[in-house]
């Protein structure tokens, strides 16, 4: 074989390989660019992108050259308004990098972006390679789901509370009606006795008047009234007290949340949540509340109430599955106490326990073992997000088959715990 032929063969080979390489490159490019995840190489040291997927132009409006200019990072994530986020970039070390950041569109709109990649030093510059994903829409939908879950629980709660109030309203009304008719009857008896008195004083027909008085007593059933009117009043006072408690608890439960955490009495939160959820558990469980002394804990109280409610409702459903129609009552234990730097609230049921197979999944969004229409599968996912993400606490459970399940909420007391408390009490 001559050198010339060898040369031609090699040239062919090079062409072939190049084509193959191009094909492969094109395949990877298409793969990278046909998703919403934007491939990028970010030069952190100079705040510019040395590579950016074309989706970025469509998503955020900046033309490609702007991404590649020095200081591009300052445009999309201004240092001034996001010092902490920028610090994450500045201080990131070699290795995997995960981050959620805001990102400003060319028209000023704010997006939320998830970054995932690997950081390494290349020729004296810190480079981050990976994908960025616009999750604004996902976030918004998540918020909507959370809102609809809250609406759902408010709806079922409203029905339950309506029933709780209906019962005392029913008997208070009946009692008051009884007292009203009794007053008319008593008036007739009193009039008859006055006539008797008059007859005695004027020496009239005393015997006839006495007989009429006795008849009036009989027809009014005075003994019955004298016995029952005070009971009717007592029962009404009890009923009105019950209504007042429910209304007060409802108000406390529906505590409007502020943007910042406020110190709150979690025992009071537990008590009012137990009152508003009474209808959920009263036919299936007895409540054993062992509430220890707690400091005020900074929190978003409305959301904590929701979490406690969710756990109470789950616990009563678990117990209901065991007691069914037997008329027996299970036990729902609520404990609270301080454990070091944390407040711990636990809610235990005497249900069937959580089957081994689903234990790992119970905090997943949309996971539910309840029948259709009874739960959205969002309760525990949201509970965890509230406790862990928003409050820096933990939410875990212990479960034993045929014995029951206990959920533990732990919330940090925080250093700001004590001070504002005193202020508030003084005020």
């Amino acid at each position: 074989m001559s050198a010339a032929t060898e040369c031609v063969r090699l040239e062919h080979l090079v062409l072939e390989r190049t084509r193959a390489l191009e094909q492969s490159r094109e395949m990877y490019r298409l793969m990278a660019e046909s998703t919403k995840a934007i491939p990028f190489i970010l030069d952190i040291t100079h705040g510019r992108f040395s590579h950016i997927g074309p989706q970025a132009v469509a998503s955020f409006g900046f033309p490609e050259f702007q991404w590649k200019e020095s200081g591009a990072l300052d445009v999309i994530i201004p240092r001034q308004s996001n010092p902490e986020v920028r610090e994450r970039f500045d201080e990131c070390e070699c290795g995997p990098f995960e981050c959620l950041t805001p990102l400003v569109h060319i028209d000023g709109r704010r997006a939320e972006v998830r970054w995932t990649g690997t950081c390494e030093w290349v020729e004296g510059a810190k480079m981050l390679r990976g994908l960025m994903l616009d999750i604004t829409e996902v976030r918004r939908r998540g918020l909507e789901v959370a809102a609809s879950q809250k609406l759902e629980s408010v709806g079922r709660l409203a029905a339950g509370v309506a029933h709780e109030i209906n019962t005392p309203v029913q008997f208070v009304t009946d009692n008051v009606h009884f007292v009203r008719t009794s007053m008319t009857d008593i008036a007739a008896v009193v009039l008859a006795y006055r006539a008797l008195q008059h007859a005695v004083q004027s020496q009239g027909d005393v015997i006839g008047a006495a007989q009429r008085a006795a008849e009036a007593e009989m027809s009014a059933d005075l003994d019955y009234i004298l016995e029952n009117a005070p009971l009717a009043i007592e029962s009404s006072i009890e009923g009105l007290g019950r209504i007042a408690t429910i209304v007060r608890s409802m108000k406390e439960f529906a505590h409007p949340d502020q943007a910042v955490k406020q110190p709150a009495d979690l025992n009071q939160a537990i008590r009012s949540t137990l009152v508003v959820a009474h209808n959920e558990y009263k036919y299936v469980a007895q409540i054993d509340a062992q509430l220890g002394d707690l400091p005020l804990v900074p929190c978003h109280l409305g959301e904590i109430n929701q979490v406690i409610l969710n756990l109470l409702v789950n616990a009563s459903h678990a117990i209901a599955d065991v007691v069914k129609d037997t008329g027996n009552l299970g036990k729902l234990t609520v404990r609270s106490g301080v454990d070091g730097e944390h407040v711990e609230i636990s809610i235990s049921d005497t249900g069937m326990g959580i089957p081994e197979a689903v234990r790992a999944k119970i905090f997943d969004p949309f996971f539910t073992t309840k029948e259709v229409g009874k739960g959205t599968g969002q309760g525990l996912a949201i509970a965890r997000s509230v406790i862990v993400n928003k409050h820096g606490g933990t939410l875990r459970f212990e479960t034993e088959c045929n014995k029951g399940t206990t959920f533990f909420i732990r919330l940090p007391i925080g250093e700001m715990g004590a001070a504002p408390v005193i202020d508030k009490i003084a005020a």
Partner: protein
Amino acid sequence: MNTRIVFVDDELNILQAMGRSFHGMRNEWNMEFLSSGAAALDSLSKAPADVIVSDMRMPGMDGWQLLAEVKKRYPQTVRLVLSGHADPSSVMRAVGTAQLYLAKPCESGSLKAAIVQTQMLRQLLSSDRLALLVGEVGMLPSAPTAFQEILACLQNPAASLTDAAQIIGRDVAMTANIMKLVNSAFFGSRRPITTIDRAVAYLGMDTLGALVLGHGVFQSGVATGIDGFSLEQLWQHTEQTAAAARAIALSENLSGARADEAFLAAVLHDVGKVVFATKAAALPNETLDVVAQMEAHHAEVGAYLLGLWGFPNSIVEAVAFHHTPNRASEKGFGLSGIVHVADRLVHLRSEHRSTSIDTGLQPGYLEGLGLEHCLPKWSAAVESLDDRMAAA
């Protein structure tokens, strides 16, 4: 004899307060207040009651279980629910078991009126045996064709509420069942709903679908076991009579609302026959002549049933007196009269006896009102209806 009433509620305060507020009735009512379903069944086994008023949600045996048991053992006892529960699924469960569903809080006056009403209705019935018959009724069965129509309609995504209302409105059983349901206190409507259009609009397509497909609020009737009578025939007669009643009402220049009421009364006029049909299917060994019994008593049986179900008095009366309109309390050419005439004219047409002298009308009724000259006009109105129906 005093009316015996058993009240059941797990809340002692409620029972005591009821006892006090009904103390004024002690001379007419013999009342017992019990705190559980078991206690109530025990008491009934010693002495049957005329009326039972039960709470729905109770520990152990709940209201539905109790009333289902009462229905089985003592069908003649009138079953009322008094519940604070607005949970539709638990109440849909009860709708075939209880005859009337009242919501807490309920004024003692309303409860008293409902109880008194059940006892007045009893006077419509000529024998205790008929009360037993009505007491066993749960949901009424429809003509199979009508049932197929509503199923097809509910499963058709393009179907509208108007389509559903048209199908329901022509069938006596569906109309009765759905009106009972929407007028149950738990469905939350404060004002009585008196037309099928409004009942269906109130429920909406989804709820209607759930009720029919999931809760058996409508059911397809089986063979009645009564010779010469079928639900299909009744269905046709019902539809024609209802249209005729509306035509007559309109020809008398009555208001649209009044014409709707006449239509509803006419749809329901033979509801008693459905009761007999259900009963005959359940008891094929009935020794008495069921056809004769049905012909003689269906009006009173139907009226008693609708009365217990809380239908307005005007409708109950029209059903009770659709053969004997002169017994109605409403003076003049009222609902009973309209339904009576419509019923007779439709019978005459189907029997091809339109020229017959014997109209089957109550002798002297129209003459007493001075309305005999109107008969040809009404007849024509009904005839033209037939033409339009045939054309369509």
